């Protein structure tokens, strides 16, 4: 099911959480809503779910106006950062909740719940209470619960934010695979650009309640629409007056047009790449990433003076930004 957000504005007191935001999410896509905290990304998700009412604008689900629809009538699955597990219910009852509410036959509920518990690998924990599950298990339970009534949309609000790094990576892969299997339109909110780029096929970048850019991960990285996107998606460093990606820095032993004179402070070899810490004449530091072969060809060493410039493609992109 497609989601369309039209000119939505939401204020909390004097704080503008969303400022005239329009965004279309195509049917079956896996979209990440990316931004720093306070950028309005969670508010957008909560408005789509009906947990918040926008002050202005509309929300369309499958092309129908859902702006005033109560959350229980939207048939969306929602996963909270802190799981929102029903603590007084077993894992089985948690997952069955949406079906119990809909008064489905007992047999059907049991079958569906078994199937979902299998899917999230919690079949062995069906009779436990959430307090006896780990964070990762609780979040998988919450996912199964959200999927139980076959929602038209799956919305995840920083779903992996409260988990440790290893579990987070596991669940990311798992979400990706789940989406390939189930194919429900999925939107997840994150402040982690790596997570967004890795999992999603489309990324919408937010800042200060505004939609900065939306597109495929590679698109955002290669042609950022604003300096904010450039900084937020992938690394960016200042080279002289310009902002460039570390891997776009080219080092030469002789000066050229627009090149900046730098001193090599440190070289760290990281597998196929090397990270080179540089200092400009004025004392500003920056980091470049170069291929190992390049490093060896140039025979660079600490303390040497070289000239750094950005690769040509980036110079064009940089012009486009201005």
């Amino acid at each position, binding site marked *: 099911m497609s989601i369309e957000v039209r000119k939505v504005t939401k204020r909390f007191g004097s704080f503008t959480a969303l400022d005239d935001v329009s965004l279309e999410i195509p049917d079956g896509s896996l979209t990440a809503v990316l931004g720093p905290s306070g950028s309005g990304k969670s508010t957008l998700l909560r408005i789509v*779910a*009906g*947990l918040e009412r926008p002050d202005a604008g509309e929300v369309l689900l499958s092309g129908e106006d859902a702006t005033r629809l*109560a*959350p*229980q009538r*939207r*048939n*969306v*699955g*929602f996963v*909270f950062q*802190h799981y*929102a*597990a*029903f*603590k*007084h219910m077993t894992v089985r009852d948690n997952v069955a*909740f*949406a079906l119990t*509410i*809909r008064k489905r036959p007992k047999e059907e509920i049991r079958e569906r719940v078994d199937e979902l518990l299998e899917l999230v690998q919690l079949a062995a924990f069906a009779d436990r209470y959430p307090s006896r599950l780990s964070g990762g298990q609780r979040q998988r339970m*919450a996912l199964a*619960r*959200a999927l*139980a*009534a076959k929602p038209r949309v799956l919305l995840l609000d920083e779903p992996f934010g409260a988990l440790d790094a290893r579990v987070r990576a596991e669940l990311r892969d798992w979400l990706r695979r789940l989406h390939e299997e189930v194919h429900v339109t999925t939107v997840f909110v994150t402040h982690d650009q790596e997570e967004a780029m890795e999992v999603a096929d489309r990324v919408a970048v937010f800042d200060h309640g505004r939609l900065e850019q939306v597109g495929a991960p590679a698109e955002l990285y290669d042609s950022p629409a604003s300096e904010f996107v450039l900084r937020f998606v992938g690394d960016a460093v200042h080279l002289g007056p310009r902002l460039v990606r570390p891997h776009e820095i080219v080092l030469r032993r002789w000066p050229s047009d627009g090149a900046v004179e730098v001193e090599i402070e440190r070289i760290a070899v990281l597998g196929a790449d090397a990270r080179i810490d540089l200092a400009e004449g004025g004392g500003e530091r920056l980091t470049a990433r170069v291929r190992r072969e390049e490093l060896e060809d140039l025979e660079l060493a600490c303390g040497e003076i070289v000239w750094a410039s950005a690769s040509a493609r980036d110079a064009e992109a940089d012009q486009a930004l201005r």
Partner: protein
Amino acid sequence: MSVPRRLGLRAVALGYLFVILLAPLAMVFYRTFQDGLAPVWQTLSDPDTIHAFEVTLIATAIAVPLNTVFGVLCGLAIVRRRFRGKGLLNAFIDLPLAVSPVVIGLCLYLLYAPRGGWFGSWLSEHGFQVLFALPAIVLATIFVSVPFVAREVIPTLRELGNEQEQAAATLGAARWQRFWRITLPSIRWAVVYGVVLTTARCLGEYGAVAVVSGRIEGSTETATTRVEDLTLTFDTTGAYAVSLVLATIAVLVLVAMTVIRPREENA
């Protein structure tokens, strides 16, 4: 902490409890059975005593459900809603704890006096007698036991947050389904605890009831006022016997609370 100091602290705590709580209870127990079982039975089977207990139980049976529903609704309103006068409501809930029951009784007296009372004049014109009758006893009991359920429920609701209810909403639960299936089960031990405290308070109420009930033997006497009347008529054994029944109920309430507490921690 050193061993002697720890033992010293324990001795002080237990000694205090003994002098303040246990000694009087033990005394009541001893005095009641001092002359054997017969006088005790005589008092407890006296129709006026039985009636006094009935009045107390009726007042409790009306006040507890009312204040439970009111307490839960009040808790929900104070924690979840924003409205004008919320601070005032929050403060007023504690009023019965802050004001002496005798003063509460006096207020009810003035309000319901058949002559000159704000409500009393109108009610007596229409043939209702509130003062010196069961309605006044019930009103006084309700008044003094208002805060307990709300005071137990409010912190639990705060801690609970509303995420679980929002999750239930996205899963298709309407407002009343969210209340019965999520909110109420989540705060159930706080409600039970509040009900236990409310019941104890209702059974033991004396001050306000003493003022408004009229204390007519076999009619508007409650268990607590009965104790005083028996004392005044030098039937000390009878007074002790009624006290003992009230104390026993209080002990049962205490036991109920200790049974509930560990379950709450496991939940």
